[in-house]
């Protein structure tokens, strides 16, 4: 029909194009002439080229879009309750959310704060609009995740652990790993932190495992709330990835940045691998009850998301700009995840540490063993007996696995860099910083702490670079303290004053639950303190033993 009448023809108005709107908004900034903006967060990078805003979105369309996304999320949460989701949800899964959701709102809000740092350093105004939206996005992510956690607390069978969540975040030996991640976004050299570590590596590479792979596993365990929230979160990440890439192109333009870029890509990739793979790999592989052999393992997903998508299509092309890419690190990370069973050693460590957790971990069973052996050949020989021991020792009255010499596990040294312990024993290295001995999980971790986080890099002054600080080895805090007293100090005790929040099982009955009396009489020790106190000779012997590894005794 030639003269079709449509509503659009009646109501349409001439408007300004998206490109024109973005251009006008980018023109809101100006160069101050009365008072200069303070450069309060310095960087050693030089950024002269004005980065482009690839998304060209304005707040007028952004706010309604996000409100619509929110409506879908909150509608889905209501529907989940109407559909009685929690009757079918797997506690094995939700328990790990006590750890995950204690951690993640802090890195999110840290990302919001870090937008201030990077926006101030970026020439021109175009990308500032992108940073503005990322700031509000991260505020969204932090509070929407806190809301999800509250929702779990209100509706899940065992709310203990959720109810002390932010206190636990500040105190737990496991959340310290997440704090390293979050603090990395907003402390030290502003570009290293807010641009390379956060947007160019964490968001561009690792949010796929965090916010895409993990929701799939949640759904397999009857939890369709987490996918709703986190896929909505992930839909904001594409804009952040765009911000990061645009900044990267500006950095590349200045040859003097290349050395720093190589340093920071190496640091950020390795530490994201060490931290994110430790946590998310454990949640996905050990928090699930689904042992479908057709589904991808964490290692398979890692290969797809990180190796193929990120390494091959994002990192490798940087070489044409003259930036050296550390291929060996990517391959080493892959080797750690597969041959060296990194994720499995982390899960084992969290299980050994269960009395000072604030969530429950149940034992893996025969059905799990079969799946692990199928996906990770050799798994059973290395971990089968351990999980049998763990099950056997999950009943109150047994000697807690952490201190049980019959098991054969050797409590690990903590890595001073990534804060995950030195779990791949043969890779552990030691070095000194300011005359003090430290332990590291891998040579790359040593390099990060000793060479990258310093005031000079390969002869070049790096005055803006951050430093590792604080009481980084958690064990130091409770060196010589009775386990029960440490748990009381951590406040990981239920409100009856005796039952532990953590439990090594999913038996929801008071008679099966461990109390302070069940764990009293064991003294926590700091491996680092002990190592430092050793004579040189004893230390060398100890390190050789440590690197040789341990053998779990057969469990009958």
């Amino acid at each position: 029909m030639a003269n079709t009448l449509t509503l659009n023809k009646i109501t349409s108005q001439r408007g300004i194009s998206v490109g024109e709107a973005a251009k006008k908004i980018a023109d809101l900034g100006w160069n101050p002439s009365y008072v200069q903006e303070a450069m309060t967060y310095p960087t050693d990078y030089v950024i002269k080229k004005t980065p482009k805003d690839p998304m060209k979105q304005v707040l007028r369309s952004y706010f309604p879009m996000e409100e619509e996304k929110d409506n879908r999320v909150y509608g889905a949460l209501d529907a989940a309750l109407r559909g009685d989701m929690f009757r079918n949800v797997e506690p094995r899964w939700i328990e790990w959310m006590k750890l995950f959701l204690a951690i993640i709102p802090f890195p999110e809000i840290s990302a919001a704060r870090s937008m201030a740092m990077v926006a101030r350093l970026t020439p021109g105004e175009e990308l500032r609009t992108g940073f503005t939206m990322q700031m509000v996005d991260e505020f969204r992510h932090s509070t929407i995740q806190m809301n999800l956690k509250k929702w779990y607390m209100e509706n899940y069978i065992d709310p203990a652990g959720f109810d002390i969540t932010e206190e636990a975040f500040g105190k737990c030996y496991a959340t310290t790993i997440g704090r390293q991640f979050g603090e990395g976004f907003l402390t030290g050299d502003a570009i290293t932190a807010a641009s390379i570590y956060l947007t160019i590596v964490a968001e561009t590479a690792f949010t796929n495992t965090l916010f895409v792979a993990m929701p799939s596993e949640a759904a397999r365990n009857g939890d369709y709330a987490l996918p709703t929230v986190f896929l909505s979160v992930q839909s904001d990440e594409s804009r952040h990835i765009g911000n990061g890439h645009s900044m990267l192109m500006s950095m590349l333009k200045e040859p003097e940045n290349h050395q720093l870029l190589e340093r920071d890509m190496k640091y950020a990739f390795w530490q994201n691998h060490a931290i994110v793979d430790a946590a998310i790999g454990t949640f996905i592989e050990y928090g699930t009850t689904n042992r479908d052999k057709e589904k991808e393992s964490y290692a398979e997903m890692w290969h797809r998301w990180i190796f193929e998508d990120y390494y091959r299509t994002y990192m490798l092309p940087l070489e044409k700009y003259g930036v050296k890419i550390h291929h060996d690190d990517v391959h080493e990370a892959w080797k750690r995840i597969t041959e060296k069973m990194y994720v499995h050693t982390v899960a084992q460590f969290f299980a050994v540490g269960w009395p000072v957790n604030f969530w429950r971990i149940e034992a893996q069973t025969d059905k799990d063993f079969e799946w692990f052996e199928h996906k990770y050949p050799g798994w059973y020989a290395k971990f089968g007996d351990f999980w049998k021991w763990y099950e056997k020792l999950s009943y109150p009255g047994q000697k807690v696995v952490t201190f049980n010499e019959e098991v054969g596990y050797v409590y690990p040294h903590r890595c001073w860099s990534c804060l995950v312990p030195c779990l791949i024993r043969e890779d552990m290295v030691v070095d000194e910083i300011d005359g003090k001995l430290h332990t590291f999980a891998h040579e790359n971790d040593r390099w990060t702490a000793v060479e990258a986080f310093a005031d000079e890099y390969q002869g070049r002054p790096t005055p803006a670079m951050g430093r590792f600080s604080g009481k980084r080895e958690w064990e130091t805090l409770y060196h010589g303290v009775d386990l029960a007293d440490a748990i009381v100090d951590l406040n990981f005790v239920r409100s009856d004053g005796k039952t532990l929040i953590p439990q090594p099982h999913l038996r929801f009955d008071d008679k099966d639950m461990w109390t302070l009396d069940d764990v009293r009489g064991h003294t926590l020790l700091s491996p680092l303190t002990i190592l430092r106190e050793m004579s040189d000779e004893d230390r060398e012997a100890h390190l050789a033993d440590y690197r040789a590894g341990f053998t779990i005794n057969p469990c009958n």
Partner: protein
Amino acid sequence: MPATSSSVGSGAAGAAVFADSDSRKYRYFDPRGKRATHYEDVTVDVQPDPERYLIQDWIISFPNGEGAYVKNATEAQSSNWHAFRAPDQEWERTHYQRQSKIESLIQGVIANARKFGVPKTFDKTWAKILQTHLGAWKHAEFGLGTSLMQAQRYGYTQMINNATLTNSSYKLRLSQDITLYLAEIGLEIDGWNDDLGKQTWLDDPIWQGTREMIESIMGSEDYLEQYFATNIVFEPLIGELFRSSFMIQVAAANGDSITPPVISAAEADYERNLANTIDLFHLLVTDEEHAAANKKLFKGWLDKFSALAEKAANGLQPIWSQPHSKPVSFSDAQARAAERFAKITGELGL
């Protein structure tokens, strides 16, 4: 399918009774009222503090040894930074609902007005005023938005930083709203020059006092000084003066029914941001240990920025003489601003 990993075949609340099976409230902070609000639940303690639960302290530091957040990012002092709760109780959902509603309202107003040819009926002089002065004003709002974006990095608690962040978001939205509004009505008015606003902002003597004040706020290295200068000084003495006592009140008399609803959202934004600011500074001026030092500090900020505001307001005075129809005099508008300012500072005992 029942929950196979549960000893009772269910993962639902109430499926079993055991220690703390009914512990369904966050128990690591004291709510301001009898019960924690939703805002408190999703906000309090997300930014940790070595003096509360962060037992390992900050684990990365800046080269000077300071951790991620420090108390000395402002000269103000508090015996309990964690006491502040934002009266607007904003978290992500309420923020997007409010911002989105404002955007829909503004777009509806503009589209309808354009449909009926309203911009063409503007008094010609008024149209020029919009291009020059409202066009210049959008940069002031943008400057405050970017300044607050910077400020939200420094606060010692999540509550302070989130209130600053939403304030920044409101300011940046308004600056973009004005930008797009002017560009769209410009499509309807012959000879419209969209660049005039920025030229005016940068070069016109009328605006230099305002620009100097905005740049002074942007240049401050004290995040609370930025927040104070914005909401305690600039907004009542310049923001409301220009937006409300000029743009909103003078527009209708000059044939413009569109600008007032576009701008008026900012007044409601400010009411919320003012409530947040008053609450925070009230805590500081009544602090059991630091009240006197804080008052002295804030009086210094007040002197510094009210002098800049006076200069800025006097600079703007000629604008009130420019429209054909002049329903409000500058002296009346300024008197109203002074009264408002006195009320605000009176609340704080300054």
